[in-house]
């Protein structure tokens, strides 16, 4: 009976020692704060308003950062960790809306509106220019046509005012 106990105890000790050795043989170094931050920087606190996870001072965020560390230890890649957060806390944890569905609006609309603005500006500039360039082209430097004369007179009048 006693001997049996001893064997079990010895067995456990050996197991423990081997487990330690096994652990040491495939070491998983604890990810540094910088490694955690590099990922946390790209994520937003799931409950606060617009606070990046790497700088959020709340206790909850502290735990989320530890979660990132945990996931790194588990061997997840950066993308997988981000996916994990999106799955659990929604799209709002990403710094940008993921490019799908309705979210495309925010990527496309500004570009379209800006292009429209560019086109409108160019057209306005062109339309403002037309009569002048036409008259300039038609008049040689030696002679001044009537329209030109009128404009100079107007300009002079303005100057006198």
């Amino acid at each position, binding site marked *: 009976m006693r001997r049996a106990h001893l064997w079990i105890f010895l067995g456990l000790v050996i197991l423990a020692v081997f487990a330690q050795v096994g652990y040491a043989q495939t070491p998983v170094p604890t990810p540094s704060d910088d490694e955690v931050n590099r990922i946390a920087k790209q994520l937003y606190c799931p409950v606060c308003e617009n606070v990046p996870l790497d700088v959020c001072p709340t206790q909850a965020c502290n735990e989320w950062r530890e979660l990132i560390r945990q996931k790194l230890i588990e061997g997840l890649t950066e993308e997988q960790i981000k996916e994990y957060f999106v799955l659990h806390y929604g799209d709002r944890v990403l*710094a940008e809306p993921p490019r799908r569905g309705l979210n495309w609006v925010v990527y496309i609309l500004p570009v379209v509106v800006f292009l429209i603005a560019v086109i409108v500006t160019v057209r306005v500039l062109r339309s403002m220019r037309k009569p002048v360039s036409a008259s300039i082209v038609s008049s040689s430097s030696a002679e001044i046509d009537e329209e030109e004369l009128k404009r100079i007179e107007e300009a002079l009048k303005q100057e006198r005012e």
Partner: protein
Amino acid sequence: MVAHIGLGFLVFVFLVSVYGIIASIVGLRKQAFAWVESARLAMLLTFPLITVVVASLLILLLTNRYEYSFVYGVTSRSMPLYLKITALWGGQAGSLIFWSWLLAAFTTAVTLRKWDRDREFLPWVILTGLVTLTFFLSLSIFFENPFNRFWGTPTGEVEALFQPAGSIPLIPQDGRGLNPLLRHPGMIIHPPMLYLGFVSFVVPFAFAIAALVTGRTDDRWIRITRRWTLVAWLFLTMGLVLGARWAYDVLGWGGYWGWDPVEIAAFMPWLTGTAFLHSVMIQEKRGMFKRWNMILIIVTYALVIFGTFLTRSGVLSSVHAFAQSAIGPMFFVFIGITFIVSLSLLLYRWADLSDEGVLYSLLSRESLFLLNNLLFMGILIVCFSGVIFPLVSELLTGQKVTVGPPFYERATGPLFAGLLLLMGIAPLSAWGHSTVKTLGKALWKPALVSVLAFPLVIWLGVRNGWAILAFWLVAFTSSVTLYEYGRAVIARAKRTGETLWVSLWRLAQKNRRRYGGYTIHLGIVLMALGVVGIEMFQTETQATLRSGESIQLAGYTVTFRQLDEFNLPDGRNVARATMDVYRGNRYLGELHPRRDYYWDANQPMTIPGTRSTMEDDLYVLLVDWQPISSQGATFKVFHNPLVNWMWFGALVLILGTLIAAWPDRDPEPRRVAVPSTISVPERVF
């Protein structure tokens, strides 16, 4: 008693404003000067009346009257005096009153000007000012009354202005205290500056409306409001810069601008306001782009109100908070009505606002200014979409999304770079026509100097192509600006025999607007240098240190010496670390990052210890990652190159704006008449 007086005057000033609106309308309809004068007096009366309201609120704040829910929400007994005063704009109800007060100050001031030449504008300016004021006062009276009290009823505690039947007054012993983020000396000046910037844009808007209604659509309204607009712009700019500085000093994330919707809300009117400041010059000089100027000022006003709405209605935290808050829908309706009315007026006058001038060249200053406006509008479009989209998404799909810095930086980066480039080119282009030849002639010398930036930054170790380009842009624009300055100063000194300094002074005095403008550009360029430095070269690291251990970053060594923890009488528990900073082997001094814990608000604050030079900032934070103990603590260290240039540039910018806005006795600037036969513009587009 004090509260009764405050409430009484609040109602009184509301009635006076409503009366002023009615009087100006009657005056306009009957063409009766007496009514208009009466409206003017009503307008003048609003400021002293609201001052009484503000004074009584301040007395309540300073005398710890926690039975008033506003006082309870923003102050506590332990807060120092200056914070109790600033608490006036630290909460919703008080900030609305403060807004109205500043608005009344501005509209009253503009009412006091000489109106001889512009009689017909007066009633409309009063009307626009008073309608805006009445709107804000009505919010204060009906929705966010700062004089609401706590009452105990059989069913629980309620907030109400008057005693509900069967209730007893409740008097809490202490207040909840101001949000710790706001307990900072920056609180004294940042929000008032921002608010001043917001309200002062109401003045040019009011004149624009007056010009539209009366049909006096020449540039008179622009000339009257030129200085007002500059002052408004100065306040708004200072508000934004101070906010950035505050974030840098207090928020503890190593940056100054996080593209947060609240920041963007204040940035959007700045964008249109800046575009407006530039494009009005074209109208003054050449009589062009009148419609566009009207659109710009209308949009600026709408964005001012919209910015206030975004920050005040709670819509940013959730679309549903908007529905719950009483003032959100009110704002929405007000923005909608004013916007539609202004646009209708603009359409009504569309034909009268046709251009007087013609465009001779696409390289002329007027077309480059238009290009500048286009870029500003581009940034506005990005900002607006980014702020609005999360709300739309939540409303349509229920899914909350974040639109953060990567989105804005990617989209606005090229636009900002374009603006920087234009800032270098446009001042050298001529009104009327410029050709590639004339522009090239003016530009080649400073451009050549700026090319030296390439070898310099590469020699300094910069390898990132975008960064090199950005540094070149900074060098280009600053050398052009300095060249313009230098050339004029030397020419003047030669002509008059004055010393260079006297020449510089006289030159700036003679053409304030031009040289003020150049100085502002120089300020912006310096700020850009800071932005490039921190955006592209910021590095950071974090580690948990025991006493005597160090972190290394960018050639600096930061050694943790000790941590002290103590309580302060203002209700803070402070954990303050002492760090020794070395660069190489040279000892540079101590830094003291700290963590302030506010008992009343249950909230920690991380205050960085910063070593700041023109070269770089070393920014050390005591991070609340692990429980702080004297044995060890976690520190985050940021290395922020060149960031100080941003604050320095802001000072230069303020100086430039003061030069430009300083009252002078010069007659109004005259139109530049461009006789088109002097040279035949080349086709350059």
